[in-house]
């Protein structure tokens, strides 16, 4: 079904623009047209379906599900729910305070916050389609394990002292709010709104991502990657992570970049380390979290993720 996007790209690059298929420019244009149309099509249709289903899972319900669970189960649930819940940075502070004030441990809350921007089900499908399902498995697995270990580590090290003290003084309401009952029509409406919001949020990341991907695809020769970034080069993984830490992209935007990097022969571990650091660490998000977390905690957060992704990079390069 998705060949239609290849045909469309053939038509634009070779028929309309009359580009010679063997040139770098033709390769880049072809990649750009095929990937943007395909990603937007898949993103929109998947978001609509997922948004509809997710209208049954609200952050308020997640809080109820996490309350009073044994820790091991709570970490797992937190990252699962983080993965399927899209991240709206405007509700991260209310969410953080609400979780902690209802007695959910800091580590469980952080596990949720770490995983949420990193893993989402739409990206999982897009990765599977672009690179392969084993890559999807690696992406989801790495994201969830990173979230769980990070959360557990925060609890183990008792980092509650690095949370702004006012958070612990908030008293949660004794009664839970009644969940609003929504009609099927309202749920569709909700899904449509959410899809529009996410498209508005990610379209630029997707275009930049596909643009960068197309540039690498058309103009950076495979030999360059083999010479400079093969698994034998031990510096490649930490350098990839260090480059990615200050960069931020929504996960949808890194898919075309990852696709090209793998295609050019960059090892899976290095690619994973690079894309995970790009999506997990966002400066604007850190600025927002500073309201509830002390500076030390933010440093810990970034350092933990950087170290985790370097370990992921080396392990995957060594294993595969």
């Amino acid at each position: 079904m998705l060949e239609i996007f290849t045909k469309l790209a053939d038509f634009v690059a070779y028929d309309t623009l009359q580009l010679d298929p063997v040139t770098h420019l033709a390769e880049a244009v072809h990649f750009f047209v095929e990937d943007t149309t395909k990603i937007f099509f898949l993103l929109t249709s998947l978001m609509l379906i997922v948004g509809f289903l997710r209208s049954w899972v609200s952050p308020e319900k997640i809080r109820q599900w996490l309350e009073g669970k044994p820790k091991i189960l709570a970490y797992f649930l937190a990252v699962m729910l983080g993965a399927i819940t899209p991240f709206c940075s405007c509700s991260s502070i209310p969410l953080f305070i609400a979780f902690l004030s209802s007695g959910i441990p800091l580590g469980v809350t952080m596990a949720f916050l770490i995983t949420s921007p990193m893993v989402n089900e739409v990206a999982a499908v897009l990765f599977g389609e672009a690179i392969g399902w084993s890559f999807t498995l690696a992406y989801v697995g790495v994201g969830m394990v990173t979230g769980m270990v990070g959360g557990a580590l925060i609890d183990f090290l008792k980092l509650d002292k690095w949370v702004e003290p006012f958070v612990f003084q908030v008293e949660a309401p004794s009664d839970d709010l009644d969940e609003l009952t929504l009609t099927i029509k309202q749920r569709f409406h909700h899904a449509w709104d959410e899809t529009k919001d996410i498209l508005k949020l990610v379209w630029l990341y997707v275009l930049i991502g596909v643009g960068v991907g197309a540039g690498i695809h058309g103009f950076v020769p495979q030999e360059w990657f083999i010479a400079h970034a093969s698994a034998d080069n031990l510096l490649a993984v930490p350098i990839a992570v260090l480059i990615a830490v200050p960069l931020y992209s929504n996960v949808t935007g890194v898919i075309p970049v990852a696709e090209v990097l793998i295609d050019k022969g960059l090892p899976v571990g290095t690619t994973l380390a690079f894309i995970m650091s790009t999506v997990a660490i966002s400066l604007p998000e850190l600025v927002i979290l500073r309201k509830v977390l002390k500076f030390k905690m933010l440093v810990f957060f970034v350092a933990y993720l950087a170290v985790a992704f370097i370990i992921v990079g080396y392990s995957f390069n060594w294993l595969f």
Partner: protein
Amino acid sequence: MKKIEVFGTGCKKCITTESMIKNKADEMNTDIDLHHVYDPIEMAKRGIISTPAVMVDGKLVHKGGLPNDSDIEAWIK
């Protein structure tokens, strides 16, 4: 007079929600007691996480997105 509270940390949608309610009340020539709660601590105390959320006379009527026109009308009436 109905007390309508909009909860939001200052995101665009929360501000739009507030002005939608205000405009509707003007249009209907009805006085309402409209507040915008920006404080996340206050939200946590009231059990609200998804924003924008709307409470009418202390009862939650909406959360997690822009409300639609007919809902707003029903809240104000």
